[in-house]
């Protein structure tokens, strides 16, 4: 991986991306009300509790939506184009943005892999079967 200069100053986000580099997709669960949430915030948006714990998702889910990007935001990302960005509903009940196999359709069952993109390794979902 190149130097991750764009990785956030937010410690929760830094930990989350460190987990991705090791193949773990984190999400938060509230220890007071039990609500699961993504993205991680350090407090619960359902009940307001500050007691949230980072859990590791199984990495399986369903494609909620998917787009294939042909026009990246910068020349540095042009070599990766076209690439697919998806909204994935994880089996734990949270939705996240990630990369995906461009041939996937809405409703497809998927599992997470990790693939290099830009300045870091990103979660990339492929067909589950």
């Amino acid at each position, binding site marked *: 991986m190149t130097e991750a200069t764009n990785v956030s100053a937010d410690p929760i986000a830094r930990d989350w991306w460190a987990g991705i580099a090791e193949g773990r997709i984190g999400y938060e669960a509230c220890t007071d009300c039990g609500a699961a949430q993504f993205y991680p915030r350090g407090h619960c948006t359902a009940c307001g509790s500050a007691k949230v714990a980072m859990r590791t998702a199984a990495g399986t889910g369903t494609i909620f939506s998917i787009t294939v990007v042909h026009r990246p935001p910068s020349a540095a990302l042009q070599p990766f184009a076209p690439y697919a960005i998806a909204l994935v509903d994880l089996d734990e009940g949270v939705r996240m943005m990630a990369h995906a196999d461009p041939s996937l359709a809405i409703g497809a069952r998927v599992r997470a892999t990790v693939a290099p993109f830009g300045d870091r390794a*990103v979660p990339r979902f492929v067909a589950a079967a």
Partner: protein
Amino acid sequence: MAFISGVGNTRYGKIDGSTTMSLAAAAAQAAMADAGLKPQDIDGLLTGYATTMPHIMLATVIAERLGVQPAYAHALQAGGATGVAMAMLAKILVDGGRCRAVLIVAAENRASGQSRDQAIQTLAQAGHPDYEVPYGATIPAYYGLLAARYMHQFGVTDEDLAELAVVMRRHAGRHPDAHLRTPITAAEVMASKPIALPLRLLDCCPVSDGGIAAIITREPTAAARVRIRGAGQAHLHQHISCARDWAAMGAKASADRAFADAGMRTADIDYLAVYDSFTITLAMLLEEIGFVRRAGAGEAARAGRFDVDGDLPLNTHGGLLSFGHCGVGGGLAHLVETQRQLAGRADGRQVKDATVGFVHGDGGVMSSHVSMVLERV
């Protein structure tokens, strides 16, 4: 009561040598002249933001440039909904007795003041910096995700979306200040180059330079008796990853508040001005608010319902898709065209007997909604 007593704009497009300030000044001066007011008559000034001029006090920069010394002034930010939000706040200021004449102005040299890559990268920052932007997401990608799901869920086709782009371009052809005026066909839209599929180049609005302004007053001017009858807002999320219900993004919640405020309903509306950053934006807003049935925007366009002589004349200036998108001014143009229509001053685009207009702005990715009902009195 709050009246839209004057409007003005520069042409939209690539205007070499333009700056955010020169465009703002030209538009504001045109609006003041239209209202018959001098800089000394303006006691409120609201503006938005400009990506090419990220100043911390844009409202007073503009006030000083114009020679206005307002009793109330600041900038506000609600993405593409900022224009309608400024008009809503101006109404509150005027109705509350704090101001007599509020200038709302939006301008940016978004096309010529930066490179295309810079513009795309700046705008992509509307996404979440940690959980969206790192995936190489862009504004078209966020709307591509919106489109793919909406089309899947409700059965909207590529052709339905293309028809909306065709209508906007046809309208722009009748407005001398529009950015894109060459007619297009649905086949051309569907064959244009892919940007963030299912969205293609002609499903996306252009990046433009432009300035536009309006003046909201407590008393009507003789030339234009157009009042703001009601307004409303809704803000359900910021990021597309956090949007939950593709059938209820906040557009209807916002519109319902505006209708309740105005004591009116969709059936009372005879001119429509609805935000159209992408073809999917326009389809979703029209359908969620309920002006057409779900997945019905394309068929309504094909049937001519959005034409100047149709029963739901829509964005007769050409909208963001063809009049152009210079940032905050892109969404304010919908309000200005509505004022011109209701005042009977839309020249070759004039809708017959337009009395009540509805304006809707959308910021972010269906994130911020502001709706307004205008009425000729």
